[in-house]
């Protein structure tokens, strides 16, 4: 139903824009990949289902001409953040908003079906049915959704020009967003150190998290790979891996829109977003700032107050 509406909207906006960025079926039924629509014939390839997890807003800063993009609620925060930082011109973007009830993690589904080849995938309201050579399996969407969906605060896009369905309100409590951070904070320093050491030690430094990150706008000039300055070496040690993740986290301080792309693409299943969420939590506490919510806001690290209400001088 919503897919039909989406296709109609795309056909309607296509004459005014260079490209419409949306999703299409990938190499099998379980994979969805971006499609860049330039002619009306391509519109039939468009799909919309919970597998459309990729954040398409990431393509916007590199677009030179006017484009339209399909976004879910979480993806729309990326666009708001781009607007705050002046990385896109709002007049050059047509936003097709899609109210979303939650996506599906492809990795979780594959695990549940034992990595068998997928023949057919169908969706009901709260379940996904996957047909494999050994039979059909029904999985509840709640069991195979990425962690970000379990605490989603913005099921409906924050900014949009067209909406494909009725707006949905979030039914998740706001405290749930940082529940995992709070849990980790409750542990001792040593436990946290061991936790991050065990997680980051898995890192193969493929930099997929950086490449997928919508806010990592330096891309090819990333200081993780430059020789001058030479921030990290090619040595395969925990310190270098931690350093890479610190670069990522610190460059996203007060900018991370929690779209979860870094964790979605990580081949080693490292909770890459944890450090960024922790910083976001502190930004909320210090400056009452949430990234990607209000286009008029200014990211906290881009500005200052002469008298900081919440920053106290530290005593020795």
């Amino acid at each position, binding site marked *: 139903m919503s897919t039909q509406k989406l296709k109609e909207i795309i056909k309607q906006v296509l004459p005014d824009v260079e490209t419409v960025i949306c999703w299409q079926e990938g190499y099998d039924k379980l994979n969805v990949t971006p499609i860049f629509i330039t002619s009306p014939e391509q519109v039939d390839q468009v799909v919309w289902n919970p597998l459309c997890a990729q954040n398409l807003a990431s393509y916007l800063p590199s677009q030179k001409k006017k484009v339209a993009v399909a976004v879910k609620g979480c993806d729309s925060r990326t666009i708001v953040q781009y607007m705050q930082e002046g990385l896109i011109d709002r007049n050059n973007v047509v936003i097709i908003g899609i109210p979303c009830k939650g996506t599906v993690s492809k990795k979780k589904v594959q695990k549940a079906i034992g990595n068998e080849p997928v023949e057919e995938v169908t969706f009901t309201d709260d379940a996904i049915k996957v047909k494999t050579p050994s039979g059909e399996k029904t999985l509840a969407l709640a069991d195979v959704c990425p962690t970000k969906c379990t605490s989603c605060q913005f099921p409906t896009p924050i900014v949009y020009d067209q909406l494909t369905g009725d707006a949905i309100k979030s039914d998740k409590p706001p405290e749930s967003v940082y529940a995992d*951070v709070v849990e*980790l*904070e409750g542990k001792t*320093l*040593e436990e*946290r*150190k*061991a*936790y*991050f*050491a065990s997680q980051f030690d898995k890192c193969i430094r493929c930099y997929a998290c950086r490449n997928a990150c919508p806010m990592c706008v330096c891309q090819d000039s990333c200081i993780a790979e430059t020789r001058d300055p030479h*921030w990290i070496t090619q040595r395969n040690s925990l*310190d270098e891996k*931690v*350093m890479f993740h*610190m*670069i990522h*986290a*610190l460059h996203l*301080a*007060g900018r991370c829109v929690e779209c979860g792309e870094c964790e979605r693409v990580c081949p080693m299943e490292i909770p890459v977003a944890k*450090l960024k969420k*922790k*910083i976001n939590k*502190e*930004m909320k506490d*210090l400056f009452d700032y949430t990234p990607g919510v209000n286009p008029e806001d200014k990211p*906290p*690290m881009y500005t*200052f*107050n*002469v008298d*900081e209400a919440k*920053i106290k*001088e*530290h005593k*020795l």
Partner: protein
Amino acid sequence: MSEVAPKELRIVGFLCNWCSYGGADTAGVGRFKQPTDLRIIRVPCSGRVDPMFVVRALLTGADGVLVSGCHPRDCHYTDGNFYARRRLEMLKRLLPFMGIDDKRFHYTWVSASEGQKWQQVVTGFTNQVHALGPMHQK
């Protein structure tokens, strides 16, 4: 544990050229006794201190990092230390989350005339780091 005197630790200090570096000089000229664990790196402004300087230092051998600049409102470049304050406070709160004791990192403001205060900062911070011991196993 042996009773030998604690070995010198490696503490890195990022000092702004205009205030804290001058303050350290004042302390030296005034012949105030200070611990010798601190290695000073002079930077043009505390706003030049990228939080990654601190992280890199801690990961690659430093046992403690001290950042010091002009007092807020007294920055030579008007607003460098205001930005620094936000960044360093963010880092101060992030470090313990990833398992590094935030007592190993301190940021403060010392002006060029405060030789006495500089001595207190260095002594206090050095003692604090010594209480934690070396960060890296040799």
